[in-house]
């Protein structure tokens, strides 16, 4: 499995790995979160963040702040970091970095298509898109009426095109179809990313396959839970699961037939890594599942930094920052809406 990465990795990857580890040191710590949770107003949050890496991004914002501004500026920092790294990267790291954004691209495509379906203004939708998943002709998505058109008009130029091969139908777009499209795309994307990482080999392959397998399993569980009680057939559901991961293939067979959350739980508890996650939940509850999964994910992502000479640190850093921004959004929302008692509900401490 391990080659001689230590000998040659630093020729191209050393600088960026140093950069990303530096960025990682700038992530908010538990002490920061504790302080943030005690904030009384958004200005307090701004004041606290001004001492962190977000400082330069927030310092020029006039005083009545909004949660959206904070999130927007924090995301801007992430995007700047990403762009800087992408500029410096050489093959195959640059491809690896680009792969990280495809997930956002899929989300953005789905967002625009759903938005136009519900007659929203395109400009307004564009503002909501994640800046990492932007591509040139994204606004044109509004024109498409069905998936074939969507593909032929816009997506054929994007890196998502190969993933579309499975879901080209002439059916009109509706919510259900779009959701299926999202999951099909995501499945294809995860599988492709997985193959790519396997090709890279070495520690990258080992760590990334673990992280991606976790991602795939989480999606499988979410798809199952979300499709309970819908008209999605078992076979269709089975088709949406990614063809790798810890649950593949036997777990998928069992998940495909689940009819309620407790059955899902019974399936998942057979797998030791997921046992602990489900052990935290009481029976019949699915609200806290997301948080439990996030916590597990953060733990795994942090572990990626324990090894050197591999690309998974970039993936881990991007994911951790995104989690941090989600945390900040939650805290700011709680502070802004005076719901401070709920502040700990959804915050996942990173360190």
């Amino acid at each position, binding site marked *: 499995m391990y080659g001689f990465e230590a000998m040659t990795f630093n020729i191209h990857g050393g600088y960026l790995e140093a950069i990303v580890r530096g960025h990682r040191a700038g992530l908010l710590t538990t002490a920061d979160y504790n302080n943030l949770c005690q904030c009384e107003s958004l200005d307090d949050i701004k*004041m606290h963040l001004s001492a962190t890496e977000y400082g330069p991004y927030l*310092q020029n914002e006039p005083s009545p702040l909004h949660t959206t501004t904070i999130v927007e500026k924090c995301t801007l920092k992430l995007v700047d970091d990403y762009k800087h790294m992408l500029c410096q990267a050489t093959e195959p790291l640059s491809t690896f970095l680009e792969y990280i954004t495809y997930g956002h691209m899929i989300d953005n495509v789905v967002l625009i298509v759903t938005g136009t379906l519900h007659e929203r203004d*395109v400009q307004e939708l564009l503002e909501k898109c994640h800046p990492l998943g932007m591509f040139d002709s994204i*606004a*044109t998505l*509004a*024109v498409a009426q069905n998936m074939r058109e969507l593909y032929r008009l816009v997506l054929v130029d994007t890196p998502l095109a190969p993933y579309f091969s499975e879901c080209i139908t002439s059916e009109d777009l509706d919510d259900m179809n779009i959701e299926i499209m999202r999951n099909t795309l995501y499945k294809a994307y995860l599988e492709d990313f997985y193959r790519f990482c396997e090709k890279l080999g070495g520690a990258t392959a080992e760590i990334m396959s673990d992280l991606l397998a976790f991602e795939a399993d989480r999606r499988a569980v979410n798809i199952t839970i979300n499709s309970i009680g819908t008209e999605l057939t078992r076979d269709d559901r089975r088709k949406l699961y990614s063809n790798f991961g810890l649950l593949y293939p036997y777990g998928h067979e069992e998940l495909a037939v689940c009819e309620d959350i407790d059955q899902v739980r019974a399936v998942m508890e057979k797998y030791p890594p997921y046992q602990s996650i489900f052990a935290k939940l009481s029976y019949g509850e699915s609200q806290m599942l997301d948080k439990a999964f996030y916590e597990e994910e953060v733990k795994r992502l942090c572990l990626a930094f324990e090894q050197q000479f591999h690309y998974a640190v970039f993936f881990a850093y991007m994911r951790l920052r995104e989690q941090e921004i989600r945390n900040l959004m939650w805290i700011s929302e709680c502070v802004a809406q005076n719901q401070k008692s709920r502040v700990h509900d959804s915050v996942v401490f990173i360190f």
Partner: protein
Amino acid sequence: MDLLRSEPMQLVQLIIPIEAAHRSISYLGDLGLVQFKDLNADKSPFQRTYATQIKRCGEMARTLRLFKEQMIKAGVSPSMQNTRNSVIDLDHLEVKLKELEADLLENKANNEKLQHTYNELVEYKLVLEKVGEFFSSAQNSAVAQQREHDVQTTVKGSIDSPLLLEQETTAFSAKQVKLGFISGLVPREKSIPFERILFRATRGNVFMKQAVIDKPVLDPISGEKVDKNVFVVFYSGERVKSKILKICDAFGANRYPFSDDLGKQFQMIREVSGKLSELKTTIDVGLLHWSTLLQSIGHQYEQWSLLLRREKAVYHTLNMLSFNVTRKCLLAEGWCPVFATSQIQKVLQRATRDCNSQVGAIFQILQTKESPPTYFYTNKFTSSFQEIVDAYGVAKYQEANPGVYTIITFPFLFAVMFGDWGHGICILLASLYLIIREKKYSSQKLGDIMQMAFGGRYVIAMMAIFSIYTGFIYNEFFSVPFAIFAPSAYACRDPSCRDASTTGLIKVRNTYPFGLDPVWHGTRSELPFLNSLKMKMSILLGVCQMNLGIILSYFNAKYFGSSIDVWHQFVPQMIFLNSLFGYLSLIIIVKWFTGSQADLYHVMIYMFLSPTDDLGENQLFVGQKFLQLGLLLSALVAVPWMLLPKPFLLKKQHEERHQGQSYSLVHSTDDPIESGPHSPHGHEGFEFSEVFVHQLIHTIEFVLGAVSNTASYLRLWALSLAHSELSSVFYDKVLLMAWEFNNTVILIVGVIVFICATVGVLLLMETLSAFLHALRLHWVEFQNKFYVGDGYKFAPFSFALLSDEDEL
């Protein structure tokens, strides 16, 4: 003031009535002699007392940044007009800044709105022109075609059935009428994907025409300059139209209506041009207002930002004070030098008086076991030398400060390596230039390297003066010897000087009075002579400096009252070093004076190998053998003396103190001896093995160090040799060689190469390397004899230290 020791410090407590707090702190900031301790370290920034004020300052700073940005955009530079008479306080400033900001933003918004319309009209005009061109050319070709067609029909008309054809053409034209079109502008880099998407979306059922606009256009929405293309798209059918409109929106293509009627076109162009000129004047007026507004801000900008920085610093300091229980006064703790006591008290009194406060501030001195900060009172001359020492480590509180000696020894050791009075004068001139323009340079921001040279200008000047001195001793001027002080003492035996290099010269006058006789230069025996001289000199200098270091350790031990260190550290160290290398220095001097032929290597080596042997021809003075034996024995005794007694004595001392502690009176820790380095140890656990190992390491380090450090001083010789050889190479091989060609061009080239090499290699690189070696000799060889350097610097709260580049 004792130069050798840092200022005596005291921990003071200030109790300031809350109404006088702000003023007191700002007066103390003017004074700049108190270092406040953070008494609220456990509180997060927004939980502190003055968090709101700091937030206000931050908000104002943001406004000022906005002004600055706008001023840069408008090309207005903030002029520093010292309008001190209009002293403004924070509240007024806040109001004023808010007003100005609102004014500025409104003005900006208006301008932007106008600019938006203006840009739109400009784009519209461009569309009208380009599309008009296109339409007319199309019409011309269509007319030409039509005419041809007509000609054809008229020719063939009689033969073919004209009715049918006419019908066809009319049917064709009827279809043509239904064609709609959209015109507008699209950014150039998006034009190709735009066309592609249009083609795909309509399955090729559009006709699109683009025309390039030569100059970049201001985009109405973003206000930035963008390269754009004018396009016209022809389509048929409503569904296609809606698709095209959506795509236009998606690509940020601005659409403008256009009519194919020529008359209307002209009218529109006229209208648009009229509107444009109207708008232009309005915009100009707006811009003028904007820039005058900014100019008036610019006059006061510096003053405001200074005030804001000070206020922010004051509130940050206030946040470090703790609230008294009664919430009527603030409690401050901090370090200050003892000499500043009366000044601080005076300042506090003034502050409370100025605030009409009912009660005065209370100033009291606290007792503490904490180690106080180190504060050396420096001036602009001594500060850079102190920096050299601090770069290694800040002195422990009140330990002997090597900075005092560094002022002389540092430039001197540098000069030993850099002895050339020609080079010395060059560097002196450069540093004098910096010193003369000191006032000008200190107020402005310099580049990185320039800043470094400027900061060390006095060090450089001293180094240059000393290297002029050693240059005279070495008799080097760009490696040319000069007989300045007297003619050379030696002369050839006969006028032809044939045998000068074989049998040597004869002495005709008294010895050359100062430095090296110029006649040595260029002879075959120059190098062996100089090497021997410089090598011995380096050892003499090194032994002197190391002895100074050890003597300083004696002063430290005496000052901190530790007799163990005097008797079991200082004395054996002195004995060890001097019985070996002090003796070496002695015999070097004896050899110089007596002119003996003794081999000093031999003497030193056999002093160890076979001390009882007869010295033979290497004997320098009577009784040398017995002296050597005695010295060797004392050196051998010194080693265990250094190693063994100290740990045992410390252990004993600790045990005594530990026993006595539970019974003895609680005495005040007033005297400095008690608060010295050993008292904190007394209360902690005493780990004998640790102390012993520590002492072992110390002893080994000293014993080995005595040899290796002495050898290390030989770098003085090596560097000075390298310097003189390099400069002689440049002189002989470049300048003299160029001279010999008797060709002006070659001479000029030679001179240029010589100057470049002298400046680049000798004046810059050699200076740097000699500097670094001198630095090493001070940090390692000198300071490790006595310097602990684990203190921390006194960092007073002072407005003068608020740096200008400090971001608002």
